[in-house]
């Protein structure tokens, strides 16, 4: 049968894929998508823990509530983040992160 570790492993791999995307891709929109992947990976872990730690024969819903909040925050983040990207694109005509280096000291 499927063990908790299996879920955690899958979640971890998904996280790693997202992480690799953040590090390797130069397109800021794709980086953003990869961030969503990482968030989702953590959601999977949370749900898995919630299911495996039963309370009185039911999943521990605290974990799922955290997932709920993460999704809400992620939605807000996506909205704001994309708005920022649009504003940036208007100013710079690019979505390439290497072109966005005005923070260089």
């Amino acid at each position, binding site marked *: 049968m499927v063990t908790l570790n299996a879920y955690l492993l899958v979640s971890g791999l998904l996280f790693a894929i997202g*992480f690799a995307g953040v590090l390797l891709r130069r397109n800021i929109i794709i980086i953003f998508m990869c961030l969503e992947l990482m968030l989702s990976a953590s959601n*999977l872990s949370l749900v898995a823990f919630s299911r495996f730690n039963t309370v009185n024969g039911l999943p521990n819903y605290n974990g799922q509530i955290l997932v709920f*909040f993460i999704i809400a925050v992620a*939605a807000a983040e996506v909205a704001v983040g994309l708005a920022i990207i649009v504003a940036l694109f208007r100013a710079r005509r690019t979505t390439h992160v290497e072109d966005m280096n005005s923070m260089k000291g």
Partner: protein
Amino acid sequence: MPPVAFIIFSVIMLVFGVLVVVNRNPVASALSLVVSFLGLAALFVSLDAYFVGVVQILVYAGAVMVLFLFIIMLLDLKAEARRKINVVPMIGGCVLTAVLVLQLVSVLNTFEPGKKSLVEAPLDYAAAAAARPAVPEGKSDTIKRDLRENKLPDVRLLGEQLFTKFPFHLQIAGVLLLVSTVGVVILSKRELK
């Protein structure tokens, strides 16, 4: 859920996750992400988290990804022109990811509680129904009723928790969404004054 289904959905999820990263075309990446999220939602369902699974599809695969596609279309992003690949950051990123995976594996190897399977953590509706407190005369407990009927009132249970234990947090999340809405409106205005 049998292991086969778990494996299938996991593989779908991971493969399309990889596609997100490697696709040169942002639209293809976005669509891959949708598929990856579908696989993820299936895994949620396999964990008896029906509500979260549905939300994942509705909010993520639906709303958020539409937003992404919208923006990609709006900005009219073509496939990236090939740029010179910087070798050092590339290798660095790959190594870091690999190390992360290695760490993960080694941690999971020694994680004893994680070795129990779903069978060893069965859902017990009767016990759950029994554990619920008594309700006053004249009121009925729909959750208890559902449990007695051997159904998992997933949404109700979540909602009960949310509104009894975390009402304040819920409101904060609401405010956050409001603020972000306002923020987005301001950011999207052409002329910032």
